[in-house]
């Protein structure tokens, strides 16, 4: 036994190596790079179907040089931020309002159910007829997609605040406004955080789809026109950017925010 632990076997060393996460990621990226370049060198028309990674990287340099990439990128991000912040600003109070009164909630819940299942992308043709191919169209679609998930989550969050807390506040002479500010809002904070992440996720998809369909400049537009103009390098570059942006946004901003909120405001109750 002791002999074995002194001279670790090759398999053990390999396993140890694989346990390091960063190492893993590097191996993965290198592996994907090789598979990708080998496939692209083997197929018939790589420029059209699967350009090599180097070609994609070069196209990014080209687009950076022309200044297109930063402008597309910022356009998309601005749309996301503006759209989802208006959506959240409208959705959170709406959800809270619905949550306070049972009658109001029962009245509006079926309608919200209906509109939530009409996805933002499906109403897109209607919005295009109403506002044409403009920035308003994209914004309306983002608003629509981000409003309903957050309102719904906040509503269920308010519902889950234990009635005892509300009673306790009432007994101590709190007004309706105070109950809302001091009991319901903090009590539903974790749900607000979760719902915001969900909403922003939906909004992100809506931004990409909206730019594609309404033809407004941005990352979605870039991959859409790239396909039209037979520039597959740009399509793949755009896809990678979309993926990486969302990962960065989700893992380094939204998830920590959500975790912190739950840690700070989460109710541990029996």
């Amino acid at each position, binding site marked *: 036994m002791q002999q074995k632990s002194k001279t670790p076997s090759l398999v053990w060393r390999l*396993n140890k190596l*694989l346990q390091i*996460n960063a190492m*893993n*990621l590097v*191996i*993965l990226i290198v*592996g*994907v790079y090789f598979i990708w370049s080998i496939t692209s060198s083997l197929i018939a028309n790589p420029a*059209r*179907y699967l350009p090599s990674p180097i070609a994609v990287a070069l196209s990014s340099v080209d687009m950076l040089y022309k200044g297109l990439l930063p402008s597309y990128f910022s356009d998309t991000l601005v749309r996301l931020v503006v759209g989802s912040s208006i959506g959240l600003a409208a959705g959170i109070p709406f959800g809270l309002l619905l949550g306070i009164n049972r*009658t109001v909630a*029962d*009245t*509006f*819940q*079926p*309608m919200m*159910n*209906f509109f939530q*299942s*009409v*996805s933002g*992308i*499906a*109403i*897109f*043709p*209607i919005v*295009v*007829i*109403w506002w044409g191919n403009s920035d308003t169209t994209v914004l309306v679609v983002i608003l629509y997609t981000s409003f309903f998930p957050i309102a719904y989550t906040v509503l269920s969050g308010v519902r889950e605040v234990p009635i005892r807390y509300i009673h306790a506040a009432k007994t101590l002479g709190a007004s309706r406004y105070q109950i809302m500010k001091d009991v319901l809002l903090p009590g539903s904070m974790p749900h607000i955080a979760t719902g915001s992440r969900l909403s922003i996720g939906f909004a*992100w*998809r809506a931004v*990409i*789809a909206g730019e*594609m*369909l309404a033809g407004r400049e941005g990352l*979605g537009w870039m*991959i*859409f026109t*790239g*396909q039209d103009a037979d520039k*597959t390098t740009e*399509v*793949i570059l*755009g*896809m*990678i950017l*979309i*993926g*990486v942006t*969302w*990962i960065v946004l*989700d893992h380094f901003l939204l998830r920590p925010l959500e975790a912190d909120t739950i840690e700070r405001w989460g109710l541990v109750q029996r």
Partner: protein
Amino acid sequence: MSVLAIASIAVQRRFGRQRIRKLLLGSIPFVVLISLWHANTVFEWLEPVFIPPIGDVWDAIFLLQEDCPGVGAAIALDNNCLMSTHVLSSLGRVILAAVIGLPLGIAFGILAGMNRIASKFLEPVGIFANSISGIAWIPLAIVWFGVGWVTTLFIMLNTIFWLMFFNSMMGVRGVARVYEQSVLTMGGSRWDVIWHVYLPGAMPSIISGMRMSMGFGWRALIAAEMIGGDSGLGFMIFTSAQEFKIEEVFLGVIIISLIFMSTDKYFLVPLEKWTIQRWGLVWKPN
């Protein structure tokens, strides 16, 4: 007591007071919306190009189905039976994608949940694939497969597969090791462990993943049909919008949401509840 009061009490006893209250209250916004919609046609606040009369939306069903030779042609997706062709081809894609994508996703998810090395390589790929939402794949799919069936199916499969993969993986990871070890102690094979421990243990997570992936998949499918399809409900509303036939667009949107709502409410939600009741693990050993 008047007759009305007696009848009302009888109805309340029969169907339940709360349920009736919810139904009545819940129908108020719909009634208001529909009457506003109708008032718009009567008083012409907004032009019919922007909001069609309700009657036109209803008539659009029959207008689209007008040239249909018969039921046989409707099932064969004849191009003259537009309405049924679009609905059936969308549904067909959903079913096909579910039949292929769900088992594949579950299989890979269980594999990744069981094997740490596999999961280390598959998980980052999954995170990346999930964050490139289904929609962003559409242009590349059009380049690869052209406009049509394959593209739309690919987009939906892609969306379903990764969500399913993630949920099954998380489900398998959540299963307590004690169960696995006890099966192994009693002489079970690896296959036994998969079949009797991982699959049932991960079932609640798998089923909620199924519900989620069908929701996302349906949205992605509509988008894919709009951009890269040649039939289906998404295609129908997109082309109708380009021809400014807004009544067809409204009809399509209503059908899309009704299909989704009814599948979710009458099939997926009950299935989820039943699974959690049947397979959900309440007891967790330390």
